C-alpha cells in the first residue's frame, strides 16, 4: 500500500536512544521508505523517557502518534511490510504513546513537552507553551517573580533541597554591580539523567528558566556548567543558545523588553566534586575544583565574588511552568513540604528503566515494581540506592517508604537528584560499601582531612573487614571513622559518604561476614 502524502516519523535524538542505534534506525527508515516510494519526514524528537523501548519510533497517523519499540535496523523492512506508517499491527507496536501505562500514569509538568517535537525548533517551542512563563515574568516586578517562586514551594533539585524562592530572595536583596545565574548541569550522580534529558530534549525551557531567574534577582549573565561526559547535550545546548540569541530570546534586549540577559556555556572536566556548588564556582573561574568554606554563601559572594544564584537544571527547568501556571498550581502537587513533581530516574538492574515524573509521595515499591517491573535480570531486587553515590542503600523492607524529603531523611535516606539504582540478589553489599569509600578517595577535592584521608583508610578497613581480619574491631573502627567523616568534613562529599557505607553495613551485615 502506498500513500501519496508525506508521513511524519519521529526518531529520538536523545543520546540514550542514540546509544541503542537511533541514528542508524532513522537512516534505515528513510532508505526503506524510498524503496517503497513513500515520502517520509523524519523528526528527531526528544525521548519520552521509556528508555527500555529506545529507539522508540513514533508514526503520526490520523488516530494519533503510534509508538514502536525498541526498533533495530533489522526490524525496519518488517515494519514497512506490516504497514507501520499507517500504525499497523506488529510485535513492536506499543500503541498510542499517551495510552502506554508507564507514560499515562505520570504527572508531567517539567517533561510535558519533551518528546513532542524537535527540541531545537523555536517555533515548535512557542507553539507548545514555550515563552509564556517568560512573558508573564516580564510583566512582573522582580519581587513579584520571587514571591511566585516562594509560593510554589519549589526546592532545589540538585540534592540539598533548599527552597529556590528563598535563595532567589537573598540574591535579589544583595546590592551589587553584577550578579550571576549559575546553572549546575554537572549531574554527577550515578543513576541520574534527567538534567541530560532536559538539555537534549527541551533546552529552551532551561534557558527560559535562567532568564526568568535573571529577571527575578537582577542578574544579566548566566553560566551553565555542563559535565564533559555529555557530548550530545553539549552540541544541543550550543545550538540552542545560538538560536535563542539569534531570535532575540537572549541578548541585549530579551524579547524586546530592553532587559539584557546573556548565557555562557562551560564544560566540566571529569571531577565529581565540581557538582558541589562552591567547587563548581571555582571551576567556572578557571581554577581547581576545591570546595570553598561557607559562609560566605554563594548567594552573597558567588561567581567572581558576586551574588549568584546556583541552581540545578531541574530547578531552573521547573521555573517557566511555575510562572505560566502560578506558584499555587505547582504547590498543589506533592505532599507536606515536598511540593510539586520530581522526575525520578529508574536505573541499573531494572526491567523498565527510564524517567518517571510524578508528585512527591509515591512509594519506592510503586516506582520499582509498578513502573520499573522489577529487575532486568529477572532475579529478585535486593537493594536500591536512592540519591546517587552519597545516598543510602535500602533493602526491600523499606520499600513502602513515601518519597518526600522529610520522610526520607527521617528514615536515614536522601532523595537527592531522584535517581534510583536497582541491584538484584547477586550484589555484594560489602563491595558496594567499599566502592563508596573508593569513589570518595578518587573524587575528594582534598581540602579537609576527614574526607581526604578518611576515605582511603575507610577502603582499607572495609577490605580487612571483608577478609575477616579481627572483625569486631574493624567494624568499630569503620563506624568511628564514618562518625568522624560525617561530622568533621567540610562538605557533603566526605560528610555523606558514610551514608551508603553504613546503610550497607546496617541493612546487609551478612555481606560483610562472607569470609
Amino acid at each position: 500500500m502506498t500513500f501519496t502524502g508525506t508521513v511524519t516519523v519521529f526518531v529520538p535524538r536523545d543520546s540514550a536512544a542514540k546509544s541503542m542505534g537511533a541514528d542508524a534506525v532513522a537512516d534505515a527508515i528513510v532508505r526503506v521508505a524510498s524503496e517503497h516510494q513513500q515520502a517520509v519526514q523524519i523528526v528527531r524528537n526528544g525521548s519520552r523517557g521509556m528508555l527500555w523501548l529506545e529507539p522508540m519510533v513514533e508514526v503520526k497517523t490520523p488516530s494519533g502518534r503510534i509508538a514502536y519499540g525498541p526498533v533495530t535496523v533489522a526490524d525496519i523492512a518488517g515494519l514497512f511490510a506490516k504497514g507501520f506508517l499507517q500504525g499497523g499491527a506488529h510485535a513492536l507496536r506499543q500503541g498510542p504513546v499517551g495510552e502506554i501505562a508507564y507514560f499515562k500514569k505520570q504527572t508531567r509538568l517539567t517533561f510535558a513537552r519533551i518528546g513532542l517535537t524537535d527540541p531545537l525548533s523555536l517555533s515548535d517551542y512557542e507553539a507548545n507553551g514555550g515563552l509564556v512563563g517568560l512573558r508573564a515574568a516580564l510583566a512582573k516586578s522582580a519581587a513579584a517573580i520571587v514571591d511566585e517562586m516562594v509560593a510554589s514551594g519549589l526546592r532545589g533539585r540538585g540534592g540539598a533541597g533548599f527552597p529556590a524562592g528563598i535563595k532567589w530572595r537573598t540574591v535579589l536583596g544583595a546590592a551589587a554591580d553584577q550578579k550571576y545565574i549559575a546553572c549546575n548541569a554537572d549531574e554527577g550522580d550515578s543513576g541520574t539523567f534527567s538534567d541530560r534529558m532536559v538539555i537534549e530534549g527541551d533546552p529552551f525551557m532551561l534557558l527560559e528558566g535562567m532568564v526568568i531567574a535573571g529577571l527575578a534577582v537582577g542578574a544579566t549573565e548566566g553560566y551553565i556548567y555542563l559535565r564533559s561526559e555529555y557530548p550530545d547535550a553539549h552540541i544541543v545546548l550550543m545550538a540552542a543558545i545560538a538560536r535563542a540569541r539569534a531570535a532575540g530570546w537572549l541578548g541585549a534586549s530579551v524579547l524586546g523588553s530592553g532587559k539584557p540577559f546573556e548565557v555562557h556555556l562551560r564544560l566540566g572536566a571529569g571531577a565529581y566534586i565540581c557538582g558541589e556548588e562552591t567547587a563548581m564556582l571555582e571551576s567556572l573561574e578557571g581554577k581547581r575544583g576545591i570546595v570553598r568554606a561557607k559562609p560566605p554563601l554563594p548567594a552573597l559572594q558567588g561567581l567572581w565574588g558576586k551574588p549568584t544564584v546556583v541552581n540545578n537544571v531541574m530547578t531552573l527547568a521547573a521555573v517557566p511552568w511555575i510562572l505560566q501556571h502560578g506558584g499555587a498550581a505547582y504547590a498543589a502537587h506533592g505532599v507536606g513540604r515536598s511540593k510539586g513533581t520530581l522526575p525520578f530516574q529508574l536505573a541499573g538492574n531494572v526491567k523498565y528503566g527510564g524517567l518517571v515524573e510524578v508528585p512527591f509521595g509515591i512509594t519506592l515499591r510503586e516506582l520499582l515494581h509498578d513502573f520499573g517491573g522489577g529487575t532486568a535480570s529477572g532475579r529478585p531486587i535486593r537493594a536500591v540506592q536512592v540519591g546517587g553515590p552519597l545516598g543510602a542503600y535500602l533493602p526491600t523492607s523499606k520499600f513502602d517508604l513515601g518519597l518526600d524529603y522529610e520522610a526520607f531523611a527521617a528514615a536515614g535516606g536522601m532523595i537527592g537528584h531522584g535517581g534510583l539504582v536497582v541491584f538484584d540478589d547477586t550484589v555484594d553489599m560489602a563491595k558496594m560499601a567499599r566502592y563508596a569509600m573508593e569513589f570518595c578517595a578518587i573524587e575528594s577535592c582534598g581540602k579537609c582531612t576527614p574526607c581526604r584521608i578518611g576515605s582511603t583508610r575507610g577502603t582499607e578497613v572495609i577490605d580487612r573487614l571483608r577478609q575477616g581480619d579481627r572483625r569486631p574491631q574493624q567494624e568499630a573502627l569503620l563506624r568511628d571513622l564514618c562518625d568522624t567523616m560525617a561530622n568533621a568534613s567540610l562538605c557533603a562529599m566526605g560528610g555523606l559518604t558514610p551514608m551508603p557505607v553504613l546503610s550497607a553495613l546496617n541493612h546487609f551485615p551478612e555481606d560483610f561476614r562472607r569470609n
Partner: protein
Amino acid sequence: MTGLRPARTIGAVVRARLSDTTFAPFPVPTPRMQPSVRSGEAVHAAATPHQLAAVDAVVARLATLPGALLPILHAIQAELGFVPPESIDRIANGLNLSRAEVHGVITFYHDFRQAPPGRTVLKLCRAEACQAMGCERLEQRLRSVHGVAMGETTADGALTLEAVYCLGNCALSPSALVDGQLLGRVSEAHLDALVQNARMKGGSR
C-alpha cells in the same frame, strides 16, 4: 596502579596501596594478549612546531574569556588529543598565571591527558548503575583478553581505555563512550568488535 584514575591530592604511596587492593593482579598473559602501557608513561616526544602553533592559536583565541583556563585546556585537547607539557609555559604567559597554577589545574581534572592517547579512546563507565549490570565483567574482558587496563593504551597505540563515572545512560547500562559516541547495553561481544575495529584503524600515534 591499574584501575583507578590518578587521584589528585592523596600521595602516590597511598594511591598505589588503594589501587593494589582494588583489583586482582594483572592476569597471566594469554596468547592473544598484547602488552600495554600507561598513557602517562608513554615515551613522549617533544611537542612538534605544529602542536605548539596550535596551542598558541588556542591561547590567543580564548585568553580573554572569563575563567579561560578550562576552555583553553579543552580546546587544546580537542585539537591534539592531549595537553603537551610544553603548553604550560605558553598558557601561563597568555593568562598571566603561574606555571604551578596551570599545572595544578591540568592535574586536578581527570579529563586532561598529558600524553597522546591511542587512536581510539574508550571510556568505560564504572559507576553504580553500570556495576549493577556487570560493568566489571567488561573491564575484566578488556584486561584479560585485550590486554588493556584502565588508564592504559595498547602497545600498538590502537586504543586507550579510561574510567568514567556516569555517562547519564544509567537505564541502559553498562555504558561506554567511544570517541564521543555513547553506547548502551554494552556486551563483551561489543567490546571485542570495538577493539578489533580500533586495531584495524590505520595511522600512527
